């Protein structure tokens, strides 16, 4: 069925974004700037990976997809549909925090729209993760505002991080060829609508932090069609290293 195919594409790109950014953010576990933040950031990384797992389960149980572990740990790079923002190495904490802020607001906007989705499993998932995302954006907002109000050095770092992340973050909203059809089916409103909502959500925080939103010049697209940065393949090799020793075995 055509709608099923469209749903698969939507859920795959959502799940891949969550898995890859969760994987990246989990790299900070044990290495964070202060213990309390280490714990908080790790929890959110776990939540992202958990969301990916839930999305892959929907693919598996509702849409005839593969078992979630096989899907996550065995797929080849070109079959991943994550956006480039999620693939970038963790860099320094300013970059990781800014990515978290931009991504998590995008995620919150997306799940918020799914509360009205005609596809029940997505609607249920959106309801389930609402509270988690509230914390994630609360955490991100608190950090962005605090660091921008704490001193010139940290303010400048955050502005630079925003400049570095923004075109990549616009890539979250790479329009798909079937967005209109998905919107017509009331599954979700399509990337352009979500992009506008996202800008509306992040703008007041950026204003409070006195950060300048860069112009949307060249959004970094390509991830949704399986074209990736040089960072994704090594990440996948690493993630699957043990699993691929014997994909049939139980670990």
């Amino acid at each position, binding site marked *: 069925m055509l709608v099923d195919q469209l749903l698969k594409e939507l859920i795959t790109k959502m799940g891949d974004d969550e898995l890859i950014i969760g994987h990246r953010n989990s790299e900070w576990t044990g290495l964070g700037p202060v213990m309390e933040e280490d714990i908080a950031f790790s929890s959110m990384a776990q939540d992202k990976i958990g969301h990916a797992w839930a999305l892959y389960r929907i693919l598996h149980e509702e849409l005839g997809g593969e078992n979630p572990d096989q899907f996550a740990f065995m797929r080849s790079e070109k079959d991943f549909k994550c956006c480039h923002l999620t693939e970038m190495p963790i860099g320094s904490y300013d970059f990781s925090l800014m990515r978290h802020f931009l991504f998590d607001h995008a995620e919150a906007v997306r799940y918020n729209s799914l509360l009205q989705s005609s596809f029940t499993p997505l609607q249920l998932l959106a309801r389930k993760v609402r509270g988690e995302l509230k914390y994630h954006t609360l955490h991100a907002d608190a950090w962005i505002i605090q660091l921008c109000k704490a001193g010139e050095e*940290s303010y400048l770092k955050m502005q630079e991080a925003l400049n570095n992340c923004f075109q990549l973050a616009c890539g979250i909203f790479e329009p798909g060829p079937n967005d209109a059809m998905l919107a017509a089916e009331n599954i979700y409103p399509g990337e352009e609508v979500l992009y506008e909502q996202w800008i509306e959500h992040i703008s007041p925080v950026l204003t409070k932090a006195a950060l300048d939103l860069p112009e949307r010049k060249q959004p970094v697209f390509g991830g949704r069609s399986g074209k990736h940065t040089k960072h994704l393949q090594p990440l996948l090799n*690493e993630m699957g290293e043990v699993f691929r020793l014997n994909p049939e075995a139980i670990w």
Partner: protein
Amino acid sequence: MYGGGYIFDEPNRVQQREEQLHDDPEKLAAFEMRIANGEKIEPGDWMPAEYRRQLIRLIEQHAHSEIIGALPEGTWITRAPGFKRKLALIAKVQDEIGHGQLLYNAAETLGKSREAMINDLLSGKSKYSNVFNYPAETWADVTVIGFLIDAAAIVNQVANAKGSYGPYCRALDRICYEESFHLKQGHDAFIELATGTPDQKAMLQDALNRWWQPIMHFFGPPDKASSHSEKLMQWKVKMASNDDMRNQFLDAYVPKIQELGLTLPDPLLKKNEETGRWEYSDPDWDLFFEVIKGNGPCNKERLDVRKWAEEHGRWIRKALMKPGTFERQALPVA
């Protein structure tokens, strides 16, 4: 997770005599009476200087062991196979950081700041459990650590939770609760390999062989009687002898390893049914002390990584020492 048995400061004789002169005998008697009655000592209470010093040392080492202990298992965070193992491992390593946080808080109530404790860790002045100076070479190492090192840590921590210092006991109650999750998930992953394919089983046996000596070292060197240690027992700082804890661990876990068809690399290991004590080859204690001195396979890396985390987090911590004080100047309007 923690171990290394009890390694306490041998107090400098002169210093000790000085302090004993300052410890008011009446207060000391009341303090010892409280402990004998099973009461807890709380932060603001009067306590002998030696009690305070040994507790700071004990809790601080325990805290360091948690945050350094996060590193060997962290080695496999990005490679854990499958969603369940991936999430459980991240959550577990996160818990270790959480335990460190709780323990530093407990130690801080005795008057040493967290910053000072971190500095003593980074400079090598303050130690952490030796077991974390060994590498986690394969995925199977993670299951051995998660099952057996955590099991050993629980033996140690359950004993310490009955000690006399309130804040430490309360931290340990919470820690022991979380450790029971670690032990269960470690045991689960351990069993999965032990009962899996021949390759999985071989991987596990290899890890077990490599970790056995560090595990035997875990509870620290054999007991030797000293009046110093008697005092710490009386004050309920030291709660059980290293050998007793080691024996308790062997009693509970050797059968759990053997029932899975795995072997242990010590031909002399067996329980003496008459005495109820385990007999084993003497683990190389010279090596143990070499590793404590900093010459283990991973000592340098562990501290370098910890230093990296502190160095790279510095701008954030320093900026927020004065939160809310910066306003960006308005941009000039052309």
